[in-house]
């Protein structure tokens, strides 16, 4: 059904062929050398051709990440949604589904959250309405995820195509809302709907750009995902069906039900991210509400080797690259797409190394 590219790699199992010590060391040294070449030397060469000192560029990249508290909190504000979405994607990758519709699920979450906040009659019960909007956002994501899931299980439509289609549909919905029924008083613009009153913002500590609520949600979701996937019957069933769908019936497992379950989990978490984008980050609905975190989180999951324990680190890398490059155009006159180049190289390098290891077995 699908080519080998990017298929979740089976975790190296305890009883697979091992290698002797020196070969392992050699292999890791050569991995590091390849990574260094790809992630440092290649971009440096490109920068030199563009007439920019690579040293200065990497310095700016670095200081753009940890230069100040505000920068660190900026990075965290990208890290949270990326990690959350990638956690959700683990459910679908586990059953060998490509939930590329995660982008649309974020958007639907944001739309549902906005709808709830717009209905909020007064600022009096702000906290309650915020909680409701988070739940509604998750519900929106679940709805969009299940739609793609139903198209797959009932219609036999590949989830990649239906997901992409639903992404466009969600984007269209937001544009219609922002420029139509929910437009600002007077003029409609790309900058989105009328901002909500501060009582409907998730409270923040100090002047950080992210609320503790988001971080708490992140830890809860990550811990739950780890537990469900590694330690429960549900996780085992998803993995079994993903590894050999033809054997499912022997164990009395329903492929369709488990696929829908995975899509619902993935979509629900993405929807939660969407509602956090509304209640915590932008406080209004705007066309670019998803910030492409959905697509990026697919890359995060790939780089993490589809394993929970590497996801926080992988999404941190992506968040750093995303944010560290913001200053590059101003300070050095290079295009901000440099970050995209670095992210692309990162993904290709890591997938290449994965492939090399798989082949060597």
């Amino acid at each position, binding site marked *: 059904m699908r080519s080998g590219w990017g298929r979740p790699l089976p975790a190296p199992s305890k*009883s*697979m062929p091992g290698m002797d010590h020196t070969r392992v060391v050699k292999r890791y040294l050569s991995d590091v050398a390849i990574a260094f070449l790809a992630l440092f030397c290649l971009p440096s060469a490109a920068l030199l051709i563009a007439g920019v000192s690579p040293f200065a560029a990497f310095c700016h990249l670095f200081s753009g990440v940890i230069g100040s508290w505000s920068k660190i909190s900026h990075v965290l504000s990208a890290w949270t949604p990326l990690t959350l979405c990638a956690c959700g994607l683990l459910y679908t990758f586990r059953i060998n589904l490509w939930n590329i519709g995660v982008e649309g699920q974020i958007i639907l979450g944001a739309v549902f959250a906005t709808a709830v906040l717009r209905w909020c009659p007064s600022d009096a019960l702000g906290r309650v309405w915020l909680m409701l909007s988070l739940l509604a956002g998750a519900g929106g994501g679940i709805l969009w995820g299940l739609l793609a899931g139903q198209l797959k299980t009932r219609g036999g439509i590949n989830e990649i195509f239906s997901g992409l289609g639903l992404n466009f549909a969600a984007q269209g919905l937001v544009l219609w809302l922002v420029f139509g029924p929910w437009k600002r008083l007077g003029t409609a613009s790309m900058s989105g709907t009328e901002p909500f009153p501060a009582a409907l913002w998730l409270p923040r500590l100090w002047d950080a750009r992210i609320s503790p609520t988001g971080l708490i949600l992140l830890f809860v979701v990550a811990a739950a995902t780890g537990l469900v996937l590694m*330690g429960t*019957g549900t996780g085992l069933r998803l993995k079994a069906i993903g590894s050999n769908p033809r054997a499912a019936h022997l164990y009395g497992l329903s492929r369709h039900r488990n696929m829908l379950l995975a899509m619902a989990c993935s979509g629900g978490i993405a929807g939660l991210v969407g509602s956090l984008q509304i209640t915590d980050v932008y406080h209004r609905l705007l066309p670019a509400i998803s910030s492409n975190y959905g697509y990026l989180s697919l890359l995060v999951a790939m780089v993490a080797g589809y394993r929970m324990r590497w996801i926080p680190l992988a999404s941190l890398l992506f968040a750093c690259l995303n944010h560290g490059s913001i200053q590059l155009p101003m300070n050095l006159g290079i295009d901000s797409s440099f970050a995209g180049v670095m992210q692309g190289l990162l993904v290709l390098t890591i997938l290449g190394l994965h492939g090399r290891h798989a082949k060597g077995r």
Partner: protein
Amino acid sequence: MLIELQNIHKDFGRVKAVNGASLTIRPGEIHGILGENGAGKSTLMKVLSGVCRESAGTIRIDGTPVNLFPPEKAASVGIGMLYQDPLDFPPLSVLENYCLGNSTTGFGATGRNETRFLEQAGRLGFQLNPRHRLNTLTLGERQQVEILRLLSLGAETLILDEPTAGLSLPQKRTLFQSLKTLAADGKSILFVSHKIAEAESLCDSITVLRRGVVIGSAAKPFETARLLSMVFGSARSMPSRKQRVAGNTVLEMAGIYGRGGRSGLIECSQSLRHGEIVGLAGLSGSARGLFLRIAAGLQPPDMGQVRLKGRTVTGKGPDVFRQEGVAFLPAGRLEEGLVPGLDITEHLMLQNAAGAAVLDRRQARKNALGKLRAFHIPAEPDWCVETLSGGNQQRLLLSLLPETPDLLLLEHPTRGLDMDAAGWVWQHLQTVCGDGAGIAFSSSDLDELLQFSDRILVFYNGRLLANRPAQDLNAQRLGQAIAGAL
């Protein structure tokens, strides 16, 4: 082409699959490789065909040391491997499959290729229509296409891994005849098998492997007793048949029509009782597989009624059949039975864990150890299932079945197993049957059908041709029935 394997080792982690094997294959020779499951035959052949790299040792071809890894390399020096399940492209036509990897293209190439194909097929006695789609062919015919393709790519040495599994008697005869023709042309043939009788009738020389080492070799004429003792250590026999009393009806089929295979299943009415073993005979594609799948609820019939213990379950899903005590064991153990990538403990947990409950791995491991001991599987609970030999995979699958099923349906329960493992499987199945289960199994092995069935159903072209007690039949009459001449 003279191939010399010298002191070949191949390790998979802690498992030494091949542990210092040396052998020589001369041109124009049919060389048999005999051994039990897990003796290292397949691994050694994988090394020779470039699928895996040897851990140590030298391979020489015509005196020159060579590296055969990866398979493209082995193919380029003229070594072709025919796998147990042919690696072909079922939706393409016979001719398209034949031409794959072949460089003759351009104007009129199809015609030239077709002429060449028919010429080669005729020489080997294969009757194939180059325009038929591969997925309409039987396993034996697909094998013939694969042999022709390998030859057209310039194979000088052919490796055949258990080629007779799933073949009908006439197909087997054709295959053997064609191999002899090829050997007379100067090609070397490696015939990997655990069936001693077949190797004796076909091969010029035989090498026996046991636990990854060459135990000995023999040249024509062979002494059966010596070969037996080399393969098994000491000669063994299959368990004898036990007398049982059949009980109430467990499965009833009335007027069943089903789609699939070559001919579908046509108007089949049959019943099966508790404590009864029914063998299903027929050519591959003759609807015996369809019979099992309809009885297991894996495929709803187009027409007709299925009743289990008196309850009508027509059109219900496999879950309902399971609840009624039906268990199904597919022929494709790794393809349809087990989940590669999961270990043994996880398979047991998969069978038992309900809902979203947190798994108790320690308890599950303990249970797994118990099962492994009870089913005599020499493995650890955290071994992945794909590292087990075929026989041990079958034991594991049997251990995963419910303890007291009402109806046990098995596809080729001993295909690819050596006598030792097959004997164990039948001992186990007879115990299960003695506890009251009704058993239906399909097999291409006439001796197995005659020895263990109480009753044999013969399918021919989608129809149930005969339904006879096993003692009324012998190998010859059964063979005739399978060929449709009863």
